[in-house]
């Protein structure tokens, strides 16, 4: 199994540490689906925004408790942040999100006029 991607980058100029979470993004015939690994983030700790330029940004804060006195430190606690440019073909008003076992799934439907359609030949 390959190594974990969760901590490839860390932004330290802000008050808290920001990590880039690993993501899978794919399109089906009528949706764009993004699956993002965010362990330690609960439902209340995640914000999803789409700005006026159709940039989708996801931010999550790790909320689990850690005891004092670490003896092994492979990860540090902080926030996750990732942003994607969506383009104009997706319906930004109809984004649905679910968070399950620390994995965030976003489903963004294609705009009705962008969906593939079958054209019947008139007789």
């Amino acid at each position, binding site marked *: 199994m390959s190594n974990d991607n969760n901590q490839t980058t860390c932004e330290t100029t802000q008050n808290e540490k920001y990590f880039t979470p690993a993501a899978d993004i794919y399109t*089906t015939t009528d949706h764009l689906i993004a699956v993002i690994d965010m362990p330690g983030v609960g439902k209340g700790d995640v914000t999803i925004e789409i700005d006026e330029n159709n940039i989708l940004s996801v931010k999550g804060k790790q909320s689990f408790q850690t005891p004092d006195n670490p003896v092994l430190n492979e990860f540090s606690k902080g926030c996750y942040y990732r942003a994607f440019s969506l383009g104009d073909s997706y319906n930004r008003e109809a984004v649905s999100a679910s968070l399950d076992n620390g994995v965030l799934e976003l489903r963004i439907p294609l705009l009705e006029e962008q969906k593939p359609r079958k054209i019947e030949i008139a007789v």
Partner: protein
Amino acid sequence: MVCTYRPLSSVNFLRNSLDALLNDSSIRHAYPLVNAYDSTDSITVIAKVPGVTKDSVSILFENGTLTIKGTKNKVNFTDNDKILLNERTNGNFEKSLTIPVKINDSAISATLVNGVLTIVLPKSDEVKPKTITIN
């Protein structure tokens, strides 16, 4: 050009680079990433296992070695899907840690919340610090 003579500057440079390398938390470790914490009466091990359910992970403690073993499911892409980004890890994983103190085996507990696995290993009574009262 005249410059200050610093006979140890290259040694210091080497030392600083090594320190930076050793302190860098972005050095990749085998999945899952694990932190461990030591307190007077227990050792707590925290592992990040996003997307892993209670049924797909097992924890084993044997001869002072803690093993976390499980499966992380991948997204079930269909033939019509167009994959734009595929970064998430998947598949079977196994990671072992040696716990160097005596553990009360029967009292080990574990919880899995939001993809974070927390295992509490209570120390055996014989290794806990004792207060000695003066007669």
